[in-house]
């Protein structure tokens, strides 16, 4: 009897919630927790703080404060211990357009204008007709851009692709790789998971072959070996051959990324789509792919970024992209100054960084936007 009354307990009112102790939250809490939680950490914070400040200060001095912003090569020769931006300024047109005819450069500008306009438009969430613009950028735009830049119709002079170079060449190779690799990769990934043995094994062989060879080899084969098999007289564009190589190469990588996404979905999603009577293609388009692609956005963007940077490899077959143009410009004896090569490469690095970081940020934004709850 007494035993029973000792375990009986009834709460009459609930305890109100209190705010967390002030030293554990907010800015003060964060600093305490992460920088000065004990003596060793405080010491490390101070040492690395000083070291970091010193590095950043030195870098800023070289890049900005002491750098040569105007004048000719003489100004740079006089100050070889800081960046020589005037070199970039003098050669800027060449870095962007390569050897593209000066009088025809408005065509490139037009293409770039449509490109960046289109990207901004389709990336802007509330834009009208956003889907149409996105679709335009995926299919008709690359063809239109090629036509405008190559010319040979409506009175436009032909500009051979051997004259294309610099940053526009980088963009052409990277964008075509990006635009072609996603749809091709999706088809290959679906094929690899198909129930039909012939389709499946064809896709596996294709993917494993293109993943198994280095991009340099692919470009080399496209440039120098493939033409040996063409009948004499038939010759198609060197750049086009390289582009096809890059597209096939990157689609194999994309296929494996997409396959990872497809495998991350439970069997239940496929069964639910089947049970509702959706056909294979409808269930892929409406149910499976939206989820699979969303799950692998980081992997997809990773592949895009890798591809964007790999475009510099076209150097090996004599196409001068941004890096190639900078390399060529550095060799100019008039500019054989100590600071010029480093400035050139820093310029290339910054340009690539801006574009790659942009893609990375946009993917983070898309991920956050598509997040629809806690679990599947």
């Amino acid at each position: 009897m007494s035993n029973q009354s000792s375990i009986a307990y009834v709460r009459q009112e609930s305890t109100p919630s209190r705010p967390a102790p002030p030293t554990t939250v907010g800015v003060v809490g964060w600093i305490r927790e992460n920088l000065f939680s004990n003596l060793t950490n405080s010491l490390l914070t101070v040492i690395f703080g000083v070291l970091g400040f010193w590095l950043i200060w030195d870098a800023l001095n070289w890049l900005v404060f002491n750098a040569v912003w105007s004048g000719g090569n003489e100004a740079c020769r006089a100050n070889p211990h800081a960046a020589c931006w005037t070199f970039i300024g003098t050669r800027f047109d060449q870095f962007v357009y390569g050897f593209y005819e000066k009088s025809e450069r408005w065509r490139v500008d037009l293409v770039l204008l449509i490109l960046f306009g289109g990207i901004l438009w389709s990336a802007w969430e509330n834009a009208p007709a956003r889907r149409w613009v996105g679709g335009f950028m995926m299919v008709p735009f690359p063809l239109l851009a090629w036509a405008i830049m190559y010319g040979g119709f409506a009175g436009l002079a032909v500009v051979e692709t051997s004259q294309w170079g610099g940053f526009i060449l980088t963009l052409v190779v990277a964008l075509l790789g990006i635009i072609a690799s996603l749809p091709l990769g999706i088809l290959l990934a679906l094929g690899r998971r198909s129930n039909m043995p012939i389709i499946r094994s064809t896709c596996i062989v294709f993917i494993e072959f293109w993943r198994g060879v280095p991009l340099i080899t692919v470009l080399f084969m496209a440039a120098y070996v493939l033409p040996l098999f063409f009948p004499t007289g038939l010759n198609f564009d060197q750049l086009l051959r390289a582009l096809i190589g890059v597209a096939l190469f990157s689609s194999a990588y994309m296929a494996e990324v997409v396959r990872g996404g497809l495998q991350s979905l439970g069997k239940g999603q496929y069964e639910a789509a089947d049970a509702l009577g959706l056909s294979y293609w409808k269930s892929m388009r409406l149910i499976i792919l939206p989820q699979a692609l969303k799950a692998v956005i980081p992997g997809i963007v990773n592949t895009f970024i890798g591809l964007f940077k790999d475009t510099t490899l076209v150097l090996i077959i004599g196409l001068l992209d941004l890096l190639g143009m900078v390399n060529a410009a550095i060799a100019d004896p008039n500019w054989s100054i100590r600071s010029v090569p480093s400035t050139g490469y820093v310029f290339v690095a910054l340009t690539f960084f801006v574009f790659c970081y942009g893609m990375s940020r946009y993917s983070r934004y898309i991920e956050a936007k598509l997040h629809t709850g806690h679990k599947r």
Partner: protein
Amino acid sequence: MTATPAVDPTGKPVIQIRKMNKWYGQFHVLKDVDLEVTSGERIVICGPSGSGKSTLIRCINRLEEHQEGDIVVDGIELTNDLKHIEQVRREVGMVFQHFNLFPHLTVLENCTLAPIWVRKQPKAEAEATAMKYLERVKIPDQANKYPGQLSGGQQQRVAIARSLCMNPRIMLFDEPTSALDPEMIKEVLDVMIELAGTGMTMLVVTHEMGFARTVANRVIFMDGGEIIEQNEPEAFFNDPQNDRTKLFLSQILQH
């Protein structure tokens, strides 16, 4: 007993399964299954795990393929013909143990997707139908949320509404309450009981014997891939004949 409508007096069978056999590799999961379901019948299928009860109802909409025998659903024979399979799936709704809602679509979009893309209904009409069924499962206010924001019981009720939006003639339930927390089982069973009241043909794999007693007009007991015993619920529970049935009932009804 609740006032559930009587079985279709014409006795027209909507599902006919004859001498059906199925193997997983070398494993014989379903052995000589014969089953005829009349329109409006409410059948509860029970049995120990691995007895083939889920596999049986999954054969009815061809989520599983059978190797021998015939299955005819609503006059359509299930063969490898994709056209027939899709035709059958349009008429047969299915509710899964783990709900299998589409997490990237809102509740409303989950319900309208198939009517729009399979039945080719206009969007407005599909949405009106969806809201009607969401009201019937008592969650019209959650229509614009995503499945990940709902509780298990709510998700399962959405899954039921999603199937009903296709206007199916037959509903299959594959352990609809097994993945739910105890306090949510009732809300799902209530919806199913109400659905039974509308005269829907239902095949339910479940261990909810209370549900079987209230709603079913036939209880089937399966073990080892065979139908061991079937009867009306009263007779089934009070006077089981086969020893395996007796053993099973004694195991699940002990507490």
